[in-house]
């Protein structure tokens, strides 16, 4: 019996190649008919299935077509798997002609007729059947009867079970496990099979004499491949006597195996003469996909290329209608836009008064402002807290004092809270006058309502970048108490946060929803959907995302919107006061009124009120909807299952090349080594290595030992080298950042040349060592990127895409031109060069970039400084890991890759 241990791909392959003719034809017919069945113009299944009520003389063809037609792929596949070995046995026993005659004749029609009669006359139902399973059961029962003759019982405990019952048991099991199978149809097949196996149907078999005559006349044996002659057939498969059966069976796998090994081509001989002494054989990896055949060994670069192309194409498919979905509210408790909002009327006078008071404070110091705000909060009857913070990054000190007030829920127990943030200045540094006024008026208004079940916290940080971060850190007790003070009062777990950013004085047209969090984490999609829903549906104001104020919902706009979102996510910096909340699993968005329209502050207030009412409804933290998504329009998104493959494919391309290179290094390469040694000879230095290489080239591709020390230490060393620039740029003062960056970029461009020169002169790395170096650094890169893809998809995708040329790095000793060209290409994709280019490009963007870096319209020099400052600020304040990925994943891979190209 075959079992798992004795399974080998070699044998399976040779089995498939030795399938006899009729079996092949039947398999082919089933596959073709399945393919035909895919189209929807002509209903093949209706035409060919065995439908009892439609049987008459003219539709008798159904009795022959039904076994070849299947419901779906799975049905066809399972039946094929079951049928092929059984049919192969039958055919090699009875011959191709007999099988064809039997299976187009009695063995199909008898059960079919029996089935139709049973259905129509006895059960009076009409169940159409199709599929080869009737044949499967028929052949199975023939085999079972034969087994019964040799081996009548098997014993379970003390009970002897006759072996001929196995098909019946199987039929029961199939009927129980697999839905919509025809038990009756299977029984008909089994019955016919028993009759045939017991010999009662021998008479219907075509006479042997005629068959011989046909075969001889047509010379079928000579003409048809894989034809099984009538003469070849034997009684029983493994010999004449049943008693020989078991031993014959036991020997046969071993024999066939040896056969294959000896008569296989030279490629197999390599595998038998594998030396276990040197080189680890890597049978697993090689069996998986590389093998030792030269054709397959050349495949991995193409596979890698294919993966990259598919990965990128995948991304560009996402904005299409078929791949993206419309958004929907997943958490029913939210009920967005279902409540009437009452913020209005006399509250407008209150708001105007607050705006006036805040306007008067514009040029006061932080402390004076907070004193005044504290006074206002206290007069509303709220609890007030103040918190100092001081951050130092890039030699600059960012200090300030947050003030916040807690409105205790009339119907709550202070275990949950919602946050309203109105920063004194927004991320661009503009004075958030109206936003603060709206927030104050709203808080005063909220205080009057008794329906809040969650505390409401109003936070007023002096800036939008560091202040909220300090506040959230301290709220969750994960702050560094040397830089950030503790919070004097707290409330419950934060359930959501909304930030208002309304610096403009005029009325507005719609709201812009900013949702990107630090490190590319996103708020739950339900929150964005709720805000969009209330703004567009209830308030009748427009809403937009990613600075796409005029979105026509066509492919191009969707793609632009998605790519902007990806760039923001990939950069991983805070784009609004809400961003700092998201790493703490507090869903948050910033609402920015934009455009010139007829909506006033009260409308914005009602939008916030409506959203807060929705959040107030929540019984548990937002969890229903997606946390990983790409929005391409405010109402259209793709979820992680759809977009993740593109980043994973790009990461996988590195891994595949790494594995294939590792496997390759385990064996000497016949052709390549010979060529190479010739090349070396042509050069002057014919040294001992070349001779040795030539010697090994003469022999068969023998396993060779890998020299790991140099590759390992080079890759590890470069990996740690990345920490140097990381440290430098996170600690250098702001004025030095841009010059330092240029210096580091120039140095990093020179570094591969220096390293390569050093390696070549000191160690003379062999071809194998270069392959190992490539293998290791690609493995690491693939691993880092696939890990990163689960955390920050966009960053992984962008870095992966920019690093794709590294997959194809090889030493090019033969073609210096190719070497220099490739090295030049890599120099263009040097991390430093890419950042410089991106910074310069960003300065010329027309204010629509949405990157929030504030580099539009400044000099390139200034732009680089700002980008680096943002990086250092993010690293120090927000815990943003983009610089780490940049310097410790991408940079080392680039250095090692360039060294290999130059080698």
């Amino acid at each position, binding site marked *: 019996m075959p079992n798992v*241990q*004795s399974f080998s791909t070699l044998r399976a392959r040779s089995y498939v190649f030795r399938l006899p003719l009729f079996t092949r034809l039947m398999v082919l017919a089933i596959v073709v008919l399945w393919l035909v069945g895919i189209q929807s113009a002509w209903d093949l299944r209706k035409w060919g299935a065995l439908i009892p009520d439609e049987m008459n003389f003219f539709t008798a063809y159904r009795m022959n077509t039904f076994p070849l037609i299947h419901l779906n792929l799975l049905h066809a596949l399972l039946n094929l798997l079951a049928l092929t070995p059984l049919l192969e046995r039958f055919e090699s026993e009875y011959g191709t002609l007999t099988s064809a005659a039997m299976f187009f004749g009695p063995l199909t029609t008898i059960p079919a007729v029996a089935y139709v009669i049973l259905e129509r006359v006895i059960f009076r139902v009409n169940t159409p059947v199709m599929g080869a399973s009737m044949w499967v059961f028929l052949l199975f029962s023939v085999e079972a009867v034969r087994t019964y003759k040799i081996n009548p019982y098997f014993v379970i405990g003390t009970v002897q079970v006759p072996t001929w019952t196995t098909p019946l048991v199987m039929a029961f099991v199939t009927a129980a496990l697999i839905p919509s199978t025809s038990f009756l149809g299977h029984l008909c097949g089994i019955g016919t099979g028993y009759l045939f196996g017991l010999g009662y149907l021998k008479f219907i078999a075509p006479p042997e004499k005629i068959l011989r005559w046909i075969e001889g006349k047509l010379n079928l044996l000579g003409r048809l491949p894989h034809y099984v002659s009538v003469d070849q057939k034997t009684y029983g498969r493994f010999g004449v006597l049943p008693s020989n059966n078991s031993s014959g069976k036991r020997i046969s796998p071993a024999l066939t195996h040896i056969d294959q090994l000896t008569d296989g081509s030279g490629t197999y001989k390599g*595998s*038998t*003469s*594998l*030396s*276990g*002494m*040197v*080189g*680890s*054989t*890597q*049978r*697993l*990896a090689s069996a998986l996909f590389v093998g030792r055949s030269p054709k397959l060994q050349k495949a991995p670069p193409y596979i890698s290329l294919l993966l990259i192309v598919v990965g990128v194409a995948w991304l560009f498919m996402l904005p299409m209608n078929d791949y993206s979905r419309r958004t929907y509210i997943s958490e029913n408790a939210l009920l967005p836009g279902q409540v009437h909002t009452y913020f209005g009327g006399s509250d407008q006078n209150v708001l105007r008064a607050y705006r006036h008071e805040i306007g008067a404070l514009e040029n006061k110091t932080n402390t004076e402002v907070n004193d005044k705000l504290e006074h206002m909060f206290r007069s509303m009857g709220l609890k007030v807290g103040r918190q100092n913070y001081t951050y130092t990054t890039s030699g600059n000190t960012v200090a300030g004092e947050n003030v916040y007030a807690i409105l205790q829920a009339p119907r709550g127990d202070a275990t949950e809270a919602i946050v309203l943030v109105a920063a004194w200045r927004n991320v661009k540094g503009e004075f958030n006058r109206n936003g603060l006024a709206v927030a104050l008026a709203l808080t005063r208004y909220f205080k009057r309502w008794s329906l809040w079940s969650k505390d409401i916290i109003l936070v007023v940080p002096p800036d939008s970048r560091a202040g909220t971060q300090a506040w959230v850190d301290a709220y969750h007790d994960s702050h*560094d108490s040397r830089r950030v003070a503790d919070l004097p009062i707290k409330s419950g777990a934060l359930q959501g946060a909304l930030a208002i950013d309304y610096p403009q004085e005029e009325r507005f047209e719609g709201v812009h929803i900013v949702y990107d969090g630090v490190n590319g*984490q996103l708020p739950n999609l339900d929150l964005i959907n709720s805000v969009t829903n209330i703004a567009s549906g209830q308030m009748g104001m427009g809403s937009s995302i990613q600075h796409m104020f005029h979105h026509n919902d066509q492919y191009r706009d969707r793609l632009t919107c998605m790519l902007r979102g990806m760039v923001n996510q990939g950069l991983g910096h805070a784009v609004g006061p809400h961003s700092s909340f998201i*790493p*703490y*699993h507090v869903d948050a968005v910033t609402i920015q009124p934009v455009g010139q329209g007829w909506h006033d502050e009260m409308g914005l207030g009602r939008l916030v009120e409506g959203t807060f009412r929705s959040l107030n409804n929540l019984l548990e*933290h937002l*969890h229903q909807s997606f*946390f*990983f998504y790409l929005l391409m329009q405010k109402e259209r998104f793709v979820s992680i299952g759809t977009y993740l493959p593109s980043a994973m494919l790009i990461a996988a391309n590195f891994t595949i090349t790494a*594995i294939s290179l*590792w496997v390759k290094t385990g064996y000497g390469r016949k052709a390549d080594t010979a060529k190479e040694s010739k090349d070396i000879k042509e050069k002057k230095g014919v040294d001992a290595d070349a001779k040795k290489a030539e010697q090994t080239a003469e022999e068969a591709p023998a396993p060779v*030992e890998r020299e790991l020390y140099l590759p390992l230490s080079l890759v590890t060393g470069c990996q740690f080298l990345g920490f140097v620039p990381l440290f430098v740029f996170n600690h250098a003062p702001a004025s030095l950042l841009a010059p330092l960056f240029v210096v580091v970029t120039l140095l990093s461009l020179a570094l591969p040349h220096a390293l390569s020169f050093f390696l070549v002169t000191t160690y003379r790395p062999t071809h194998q060592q270069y392959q190992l170096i490539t293998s290791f650094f690609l*493995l*690491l890169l693939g*691993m*880092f990127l*696939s*890990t*990163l893809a*689960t*955390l920050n998809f966009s960053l992984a995708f962008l870095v992966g895409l920019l690093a794709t040329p590294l997959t194809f790095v090889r030493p090019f000793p033969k073609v210096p031109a190719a070497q220099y060209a490739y090295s030049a290409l890599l120099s263009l994709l040097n991390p430093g060069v890419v950042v410089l280019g991106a910074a310069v490009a960003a300065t010329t963007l027309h204010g629509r970039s949405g990157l929030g870096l504030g580099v539009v319209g400044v000099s390139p020099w200034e732009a680089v400084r700002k980008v680096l400052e943002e990086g250092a600020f993010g690293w120090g304040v927000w815990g943003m890991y983009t610089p780490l990925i940049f310097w410790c994943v991408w940079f080392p891979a680039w250095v090692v890759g360039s060294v290999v190209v130059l080698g």
Partner: protein
Amino acid sequence: MPKDKMSFQATAGTAGLFVVAAALRLLLFTAFPGLPNLLTGRVEISTPVTSFKRCTCRRVCSLYNHNVSPYDGGVYHQAPLLLPLFSLLPDPSTYPIFAYILYTLVDLLSANALYKIAESGEGGASRLYSSPRKEKRWSGYVVAALFLFNPFTIATCIGRPTSVFTTCAILHAVAKALSGNIFTSMLSLSFAAYLSMYPLLLLPPMVILAYDRTYNPKAPKSLAQLAGMCTLALTLTDLTPNAGLWGYSPSPRCSTASVRSSFGFFWLHPISSYTPALTIRLRQQPLAVITLLLGIFAIFKPYPSIADTSLFLSLVPCFRHVFPLLRYSFVTASVVLYGTFLGPAFYHLWIYAGSGNANFFYAITLVWSLGLSLLVSDLAFAVLRDEWEVERPEMRGKEIRQI
């Protein structure tokens, strides 16, 4: 006399290495003051039974100082002797440097033991078996360096779980057994078993190792000597039932704790079944048995941590001679690397980001265990293959196939 000379050379040759390793650890401790506490909180490094925080937390210490059982309250699950040790240290929150120095020293002691183990050459040639490949081996210097600069070891040292004491005790037990110092070896092993139960399972191979190393063909005293060693070990380990995990289990006051301990007991069963099998099959190479068992512990013991992995990985380089026979070295290395990086990422998604769930992390622990079990089985294969080629010299270099 030659032994003394060797150990002297050991200290002289490795002094530089030890200084660098110690400097690296102290640098990491002092340059990144947040790092020790961060790593102490990682589930991969400290488990409930090895956590440094639970050992030094004020509550446990005050319970201990007020003569109340520290096991009350289900916080402390470790050996009682650790408590006086840690209460002797100055308060780690104010003077952390003492704990840092203690842990660095323990690591250096382990490395020293490992140096001796590697220098003895037991991996390649034991009393009953001498590998044809034994010439190919790494010096003690390399093995000790691989241990000291293994990222897992460094992370463990900085995370300060109590399992480093177990590691140190086990390595010393092996080293002393190799030098024929039976009493000290058994004492070390008992100490290890006292700290955490499972090293007790190393007793059979350890006894065989010590027996082989002290075997004197002129004065055969086999059975008596073996019996003596076993009694010695058992009487010393007899301390354990009133200690550690097992000490508090009868106490009705700690129901959750007792549930945990019985849980641990049932987990110990499958592990213990490996000991006799491996000891019998690899009778000729007791050090290989110990190494494989440590690998199995790292996979199957309750509350495994990377400290166990680093102990296993530290002994693997002693078998440099069978490395060419390893079949899945690349796969193993990749799987373990992937596990190392994806584990914390998925833990983050689960616990902090809230966007993943427990299955993410659970799946990656399975991958990690898969990697380790690949290494264990591959190493076992390589060792057996090495033995087999001595029996069947004609099969050298031929590919074999499992039937």
